[in-house]
């Protein structure tokens, strides 16, 4: 099957936005659980989510004080803020609207319903009472859409670019959560060591990695194990390593893939060096920083090669 470059572009972004909506919902949900479990005053600041999502600027433009209300409002109810769930879903919907012809018929209906649900419920879900239900619904509906695509799409270019978008976003989010989350925990320098496992646990939960971690590593959650699991576990489908492997698999059969493959191989080498020795906070941060830059380079290479084919 042929695939228009412009359509590939939109499918990739549809998929990234859907993944982003789901991941953001997980992140907020995990944080919500966390704050109910730990003593007041020991919880990580609310703006940790803002930092994870790189949304400092959007936040400062709108609010002066970091409060639960403001942070949640921005992330789940502000359809104009690019870091918000409604924005991601709106953007996913726009991209589906322009690629309906290559997607299963139900895809449009599901995404459209999700969009309507968010438009109707977001504002009333800022308060704690409805918040979790709202987030759970977002996650469930995103998974339903992913399930539909996974079980009905032919394994052709449509599927390929959707998968690329999803995996890249997932890897991106995983590295962000570890970077900021681990940074926060380590900054406390063991001052409240008793709650550290809760914090690491929340981090795993934000990445839906809790039960997989337990089976693979065990019930004890510690820094090195968690970082290693999130980055380098080969079988867990949300680990960075798994995402990178999946991206490589989809890039291989594409034409003109030399640059993108080079970028992905750099990422693989970098991952391979992880876990050889324990990292300090600074080393971890530097590692993730570099990794993020290379992920970006990979995105740029995919975009240049297959989406902007202006030179005929």
């Amino acid at each position, binding site marked *: 099957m*042929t695939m228009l470059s412009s359509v590939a572009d939109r499918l990739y972004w549809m998929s990234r936005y859907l993944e982003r909506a789901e991941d953001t919902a997980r992140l907020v949900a995990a944080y919500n659980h966390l704050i109910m479990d730990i003593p007041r005053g020991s919880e990580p600041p609310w703006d940790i989510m803002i930092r994870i999502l790189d949304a400092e600027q959007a936040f400062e433009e709108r609010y002066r004080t970091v409060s639960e209300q403001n942070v949640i409002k921005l992330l789940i109810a502000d359809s104009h803020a690019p870091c918000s769930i409604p924005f991601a879903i709106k953007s996913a919907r726009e991209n589906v609207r322009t690629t309906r012809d290559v997607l299963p018929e139900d895809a449009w209906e599901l995404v459209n319903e999700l969009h309507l649900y968010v438009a109707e419920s977001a504002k009333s879900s800022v308060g704690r009472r409805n918040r979790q239900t709202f987030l759970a619904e977002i996650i469930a509906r995103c998974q339903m859409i992913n399930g539909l695509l996974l079980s009905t799409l032919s394994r052709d270019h449509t599927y390929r670019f959707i998968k690329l978008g999803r995996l890249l976003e997932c890897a991106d989010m995983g590295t962000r959560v570890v970077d900021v989350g681990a940074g926060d925990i380590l900054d406390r320098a063991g001052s409240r060591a008793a709650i550290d496992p809760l914090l690491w646990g929340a981090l795993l939960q934000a990445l839906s990695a809790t039960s997989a971690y337990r089976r693979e590593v065990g019930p004890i959650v510690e820094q090195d194990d968690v970082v290693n699991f999130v980055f380098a576990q080969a079988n867990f489908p949300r680990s960075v390593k798994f995402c990178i492997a999946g991206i490589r698999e989809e890039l291989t059969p594409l034409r003109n893939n030399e640059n993108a493959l080079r970028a992905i191989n750099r990422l693989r080498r970098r991952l391979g060096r992880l876990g050889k020795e324990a990292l300090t906070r600074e080393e971890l941060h530097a590692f993730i920083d570099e990794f993020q830059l290379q992920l970006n380079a990979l995105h740029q290479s995919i975009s240049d090669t297959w989406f902007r084919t202006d030179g005929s």
Partner: protein
Amino acid sequence: MTKGWKGYKAGGFYDELITDKGSPRTAARQALRLLQSLPEQEMDSRRQSADLAIREMGISFTVYTEGGNIDRAWPFDIIPRIITGREWAQVSRGLQQRSRALNCFIDDVYNQQRILADGIVPADIVLDSPNFKAPCMGMSPRYGAWAHICGSDLVRDQRGRFFVLEDNLRVPSGVSYMVENREITKRVLPELFENYSILPVDDYPLKLYETLAQLSPRQRRRPTVVVLTPGIYNSAYFEHAFLAQGMGAELVEGTDLFVDSDDCVYMRTVDGPARVDVVYRRIDEEFMDPEAFRADSVLGVPGLMRAWKQGNVAIANAPGAGVADDKVIYAYVPDMIRYYLGEKPLVNSVPTYLCMREKDRDYVLANLPKLVVKPANESGGYGIMVGPHSSKATHREFARLIEKDPRNYIAQPTLSLSTAPTYVDGQIEPRHLDLRPFILQGRDCWVTPGGLTRVAMKKGSLVVNSSQGGGSKDTWIVEGKA
């Protein structure tokens, strides 16, 4: 029973479902029995499910306003319009005949121009029309087919006779709504289907693909067909996507295509350039190719016309087909049928006064309050004056317009459009409607069973265009005795 069924009166118009005496027409009997048996709340809940289905299916159209573009949900009335198969067969034959004659005419105009030489149609009204495209001279597309997709608007008079009101040969739209309307009725009133055998409408995209594939310049088992859309902000974008999906074709915008130095059309794909065989254009020819037509068009594909003239790509509808889509030319269609086919027209045209003819103009100016005046070259119901519903000031304004530019105006007697029971504000009331069937012309000619019924939702109004508050109904062609 919902209010309005008892004592329902169409008030002198032909009603599609209920006779003057108030009894159901034969084909509608079963459906009416069921609809009338529904309690008021039930009727309303069915309407609500229809609204919900429309929202969930994302069936929308775009309305252009000063404040920006609004994506509106498709307005739909749940009571279907029912036409017997026997009656339809006749209309369908008439439409095929019309389509053949119109295509003969277009092909003639761009080649020998026999009909002009023989004085059947005055040469100047064709050659001076903005719809006549000189660059198309000498072209002869396969099967002599230019207007591959035609949407003709039909209305019924007091006696229930069908009349063709106009033929849309440029980029007629609405067919996706015809298909979706059926889908909605199936969802919200499934019981209605139990006692009927209704001709299906969902095979339209397949028929369209077959027609388009026949036009391919390369003989291939599966020619590459693309749907060329002006983009997401076009009011019919929903339909463009719908048809592309239904045909398994690529939905492209101008920037997705380019014409290479070999004068072939290619689309930009992730595997590199891929040759295109047939372009189903849903973009006005004016904007289709900045090299050939409007240079300021950013929607088009430079060189598309060149590729078409070289025979390297088929375009549907062919550029130039709009020459027969003109309300002045319309008046000559019965003559065309006699001239090219030697046949008697099987479906009526509305008597048309051409303001360019002195005698006609005098009559029109003297009878403005009785007539409908239309600009020759507009669509979407814009610029129309419905005499009986207009003020004296409007009559005077149109008199001025006509005298200034007589070629651009035609007039027709005010037709008493038929009505059908329609669910409005919790009541059943008669509303006027028309019908747009779609005619496909390739090697063969095919007509949709039924078409898109548009309803004027305002009481007494005759304007059915969705851009002006019109709604629509599912249209059934039913076979056998119901």
